[in-house]
């Protein structure tokens, strides 16, 4: 693409793909960048194009028809030169400049080699998705214990199962496709511990009843789990993992209504891998640094505040997908379309969707958000989860800060994750609190939602790549 871009989109998952397709249909020149080796994000994660015949993953996916349609359109625009698609590009900073934005990235196509890349456009859409939210428990840092997203990523992009006898635990519907996917690859899924009780759904049945598509998806996974005889245990949790060089067992327990283990119900199960996940934490690094206003989400996350067209509070900056509230891929696609329509309108270009279809997208977004809200209320983080921790349990994996040290910091008056960090180094290591942040925040007994720390550099890069910027 020789002419300057009208729009940069960071993140080629469902939201970014859909946004790009709409913006391109409206005649804009788009740069779409993603750190992965293929488009699709985490939800439609695929092996790189050249490896798809040897690593079959089609059967692990949901909503692939939409993925293929979006992919084909993007690829056609890329051939025509209207779309500049850049995979392997890790965006580490986005800043405002004059009337637009500058995105700094490193191209890691030939990793570990890094090439600094600077992109400019008058408008920026950040669709960086989310990652698994984690709660520590004794033994969660043993090798063989992974996030459920990690188990699925290995399956979807590498065709690899991380174990042969796996226990899954946490809360939320994401446990089900991961269990079904592992079973489809011959893994024995010995238990799925879901901390929530299905009855929780009865308190907000409306959104569920109004979402027949979600019913069908859930029923499909339930059938797959039944076929593989995978026991799903509601109101239970993995409260510890044991092992040495690798996890060898987990302890599971029934939970009381506040989420503390019911005495006498503990059971040990032998495993060689474990997957855990407690919903998702949105990836807000670029957006927080740009200064977007945030708002509270019912799932305990701070998310980016947007208007009904996915505009953030910063002029020319848009966001779509999990960054404006965790709600899954179908919602992300719809929000991506809405965001691109706003970009078109704000650039003075004609809309792609007519008024009637735009209204239909808006009402579908409202329905999906209502569903996401009901889902978050039905799958909360158990209030008493920290009763699983001993004082020795590692909470910050990078700096190896234990629960006992964090509890002492709280006793000394630290009341959020930033203050705990200053006192204990929790959240100061390689991952910059991405793994332990929400948990440390809870342990500090903060009543507010979790707002991630500002990370000026969103992904580490070499000084060499930084020095290249001056060339």
């Amino acid at each position, binding site marked *: 693409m020789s002419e300057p871009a009208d729009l940069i989109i960071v993140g080629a998952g469902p939201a970014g793909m859909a946004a790009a397709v709409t913006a391109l249909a409206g005649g804009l020149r788009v740069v779409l960048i993603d750190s992965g080796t293929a488009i699709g994000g985490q939800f439609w994660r695929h092996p790189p194009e050249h490896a798809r015949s040897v690593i079959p993953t089609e059967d692990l996916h949901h909503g692939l028809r939409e993925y293929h349609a979006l992919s084909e359109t993007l690829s056609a625009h890329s051939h025509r030169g209207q779309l500049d698609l850049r995979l392997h590009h890790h965006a580490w900073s986005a800043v405002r400049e004059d009337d637009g934005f500058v995105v700094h990235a490193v191209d890691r196509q030939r990793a570990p080699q890094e090439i600094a890349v600077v992109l400019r456009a008058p408008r920026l859409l950040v669709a960086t998705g989310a990652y698994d939210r984690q709660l520590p428990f004794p033994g969660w*840092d043993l090798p063989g214990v992974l996030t459920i997203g990690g188990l699925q*990523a290995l399956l979807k*992009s590498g065709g*690899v199962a991380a174990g042969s006898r796996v226990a899954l635990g946490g809360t939320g519907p994401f446990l089900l496709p991961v269990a079904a996917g592992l079973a489809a690859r011959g893994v024995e899924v010995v238990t799925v511990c879901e901390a929530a009780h299905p009855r929780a759904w009865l308190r907000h049945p409306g959104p569920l009843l109004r979402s027949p598509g979600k019913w069908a998806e859930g029923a499909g996974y339930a059938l797959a789990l039944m076929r593989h005889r995978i026991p799903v245990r509601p109101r239970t949790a993995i409260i510890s993992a044991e092992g040495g060089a690798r996890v060898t067992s987990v302890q599971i327990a029934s939970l009381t209504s506040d989420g503390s283990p019911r005495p006498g119900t503990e059971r040990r199960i032998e495993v060689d891998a474990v997957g855990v996940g407690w919903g998702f934490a949105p990836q807000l690094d670029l957006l927080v640094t740009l200064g977007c206003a945030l708002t509270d989400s019912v799932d305990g996350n701070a998310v980016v505040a947007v208007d009904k067209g996915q505009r953030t509070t910063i002029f020319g900056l848009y966001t779509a997908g999990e960054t404006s509230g965790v709600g899954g891929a179908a919602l992300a696609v719809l929000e991506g379309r809405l965001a691109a329509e706003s970009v078109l309108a704000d650039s003075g270009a004609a809309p792609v969707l007519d008024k009637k279809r735009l209204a239909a997208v808006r009402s579908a977004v409202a329905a999906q958000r209502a569903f996401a809200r009901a889902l978050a209320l039905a799958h909360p983080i158990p209030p008493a989860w920290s009763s699983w921790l001993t004082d020795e349990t590692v909470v910050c994996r990078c700096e190896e800060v234990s629960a006992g040290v964090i509890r002492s910091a709280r006793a000394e008056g630290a009341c959020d994750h930033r203050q705990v960090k200053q006192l204990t180094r929790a959240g100061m290591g390689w991952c910059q609190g991405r793994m332990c942040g929400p948990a440390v925040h809870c342990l500090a007994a903060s009543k507010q939602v979790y707002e991630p720390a500002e990370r000026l550099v969103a992904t580490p890069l070499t000084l060499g790549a930084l020095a290249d910027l001056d060339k």
Partner: protein
Amino acid sequence: MSELIIDGKPLAFVEGQTVAAALVAAGRVSWRTTRLGHRPRGVFCGIGVCFDCLVTIDGVGGQRACLVPAREGMTVTTEESTDE
């Protein structure tokens, strides 16, 4: 199958897999120890967020094994090997 060199030994992988996927496929889930407690670590998040899976690749340290695609002839050094 292609091969990379890990700690001086060949490791087969399927073209398209990451370094972490190749290691996990070979049955390895840890390849690093933490600097304070010397706890074994390997792949945890699998998507580049947690930095547990760090390795040295072609002489460059601090590489996330879960993000870097394996390449024929690539040399990977784990911390386990340097500790010994």
